[in-house]
C-alpha cells in the first residue's frame, strides 16, 4: 500500500505543476493580465490577445503530452503498469 501511496503523491505533485501552467497561460495571461500584456506585440498580435486566442491552446496540447509522458515514467518507476 505504501508503494501505491508514494505513487499517488508523485502523481498529485505532477498534476499540481501542470494545473499551475494551465492556469497561468489561460486565465492569467489570457484574461486577468490581458491589458498590460496587450502593450507587447507579437507581429500583428497583441500578446494578451494572442494568448487568449492562440497561445493557450498550444500550451494545452503540449501540457497533456508532457503529463502523459511523465505519468508513463511514474508508472514504470513505481511498478504499477498494466500487464
Amino acid at each position, binding site marked *: 500500500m505504501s508503494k501505491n501511496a508514494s505513487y499517488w503523491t508523485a502523481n498529485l505533485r505532477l498534476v499540481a505543476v501542470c494545473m499551475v501552467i494551465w492556469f497561468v497561460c489561460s486565465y492569467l495571461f489570457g484574461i486577468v493580465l490581458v491589458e498590460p500584456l496587450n502593450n507587447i506585440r507579437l507581429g*500583428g498580435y497583441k500578446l494578451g490577445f494572442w494568448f487568449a486566442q492562440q497561445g493557450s491552446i498550444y500550451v494545452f496540447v503540449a501540457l497533456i503530452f508532457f503529463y502523459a509522458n511523465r505519468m508513463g515514467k511514474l508508472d514504470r518507476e513505481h511498478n504499477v503498469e498494466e500487464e
Partner: protein
Amino acid sequence: MELQTLTYMVVGATFALYIGIAIWARAGSTKEFYVAGGGVHPVANGMATAADWMSAASFISMAGLIAFMGYGGSVFLMGWTGGYVLLAMLLAPYLRKFGKFTVPEFIGDRYYSKAARIVAVLCLIIASVTYVIGQMKGIGVAFSRFLEVDYNVGLSIGMGIVFFYAVMGGMKGITYTQIAQYCVLILAYTIPAIFISLNLTGNPFPQLGLGGTMAGSDVFLLDRLDQVLRDTGFAEYTTNVRLSLTNMFMYTMSLMIGTAGLPHVIIRFFTVPKVKDARSSAGWALVFIALLYTTAPSVAAMARLNLMSTIEPTPGEYMVYDERPQWIKNWEQTGLLGFEDKNGDGRIQYTPDAATNEMTKVDRDIMVLANPEIAQLPNWVIALVAAGGLAAALSTAAGLLLAISSAISHDLLKGVFKPDITEKQELRASRLAMAGAIGVAGYLGFNPPDFAAGTVALAFGLAASSIFPALMMGIFSKRMNKEGAIAGMIAGIGVTLFYVFQHKGIMFVPSTAFLGSMPENWFLGIEPNAFGAVGAIFNFAVAFIVARLTAAPPEHIQHLVEDIRVPAGAGTAVAH
C-alpha cells in the same frame, strides 16, 4: 456547375459514406452498441473524439460569434480546449481503470447508491438535451440555407435525418463514421480559411495570416480591423471585453469544467485499450481539435473584415440594397438575415446604434457558412463547407443521443428498475429514448434560447455544475460519501438551472423568464451562459459540508478508490 446541384452532390456523397460505414459496422450486441468492444487505437479514438466533440457550435457557430465579439469570444476558444487538460489529468485515466460503460454507472458504484445513479442520470439528460437543442439550431441553419427553405422547415428535415442516423448504428458505427466525419469537417473548415487568408494577407496559414499584414501593404490585419470598426463606431476587435473580465473568467471556467463533465466525451475514454492510452488519447483529441480551434480566430476576424467591406466598400459609401450580392439574397430567404432601409436612401447603413442600423438581423450562426460566399470563393468550397457543418452537427448529435439513450436504457431500466430485461429489450428501449430526445430537443430548437454556441454553453454550465464535481471528488477524495455527492449534484445543478431559467425562461421558453434576461439582475455581472462555474463551486462546497457531517463511506469503497488510482490490473471495459 450550379451551387445548389454541387451542394447536393457533395453533401450526398459524404452522407453515403457515413451511412455506408454505419451499415458495415452495424452494432450486434449491446456491448458493441455502447463501447465498440474496447479496442480502439488512441490516435483513432482521438480523431473520433474530436469529431464527437466539435459540434455545430464549434463549426457553424463559434467563429461567427467571435467575429462579432472580438476578444470577448476568446472564452469559447480557451474554454472548449482547456477542459481537455482537466479531462486528461483528473478523470479519463481513472474512469478507464474503473472500466464500466457509462458515467452514471461509475457514480452509482463509487457512491454505493442507486439514488446517486438516478440523480446522475437526470443531470446527464438535462445537460445533454440542452446540448442537442444547440445542435438542432445549427442543423436547422445549415439545412435552411442549402435547401433554400425557412429555418423551421430546415430544422424539421434535420430532425428526421439525425433520427435515422443515430438509430442506425451504435458506438462502433459511430467511432468509424466519426473518423470519416472528422476528415470531412476539418478539410471543410481549413480549406476556405486558407483561401481567405491567402486573399487577405498572402499567407497560406490562417494562424499566421491573422498576425500578419494585409496583402500588398504594411498594415497589420488586426490593426486594419480595429480601425474599420472604430471608424464605424463599433468597439475595437482586439480589446472588446465580454461584459467584464470577471464574467470572461467564469465563462471560460464554466466551459472548461463542462468539457470534462459531459458524458458523451467521457464515454470515449472507456473505449481505449489501456489506462495510459486514456491519457494520450485526450492529447490526440486536443491536437485534432486545436487544428480547428486555432483556425477559428482567423476565420472570425477575416469574416468580419470581409463583411464590413461588403457593407461599406469605401468609407462613408454604403452598399446599395438593390445591388446586394447573391449571398445576401440567399440568406434573406432563410429569415436569418434581414434589412430595413430606415432612412429610405436605398443604401444599407450598418452601425452599432439601433435607431440608425439597417442590418436589422444578422444571425451569428450564418457567418461561417456564408463566409466562403462573402469571400467569393469557388462553388465547390461552399459545397464542402455545407458538408462539413452537417458532419459536425450530426456526429455530435449522434454521440449525445447515444449517451442519453444509454443513460435511460442501461442505467435507469437495466440498472435500477428492471434488471431482468433482455439485451434485445434494452436495445429497443435505447432506440425509443433516442427518438424521444430528438423530439424534445427538436421542438425546443424551433425557439432556441441563444445562438448555437450560446445554447451549447448553457449545456456545459449544467454539466459543469453537476457531473464533474461528483466524478472528481469520487477519485480524489476517499472521504466523499453518497450523502455529500448527491447533495452536491442536486445543489449544483439546482442553482444553475434556477439562475438560467429565471433569466432565459423555464425550459428556455422566453415568456416564462421570471426575471428577464436583465444584466442588472445578474449575480456579480455573470451572464447565465457562464454560471456553471458558480454552480460547480456550490456543488463542491455543499458536498464537502454534507460529507463532513455524515458517516465515511464503507471500507470496500475506500479500497475501490485506491484501486482506480493505480493503472495496474485494468481489464477491458466489462458489463456487470
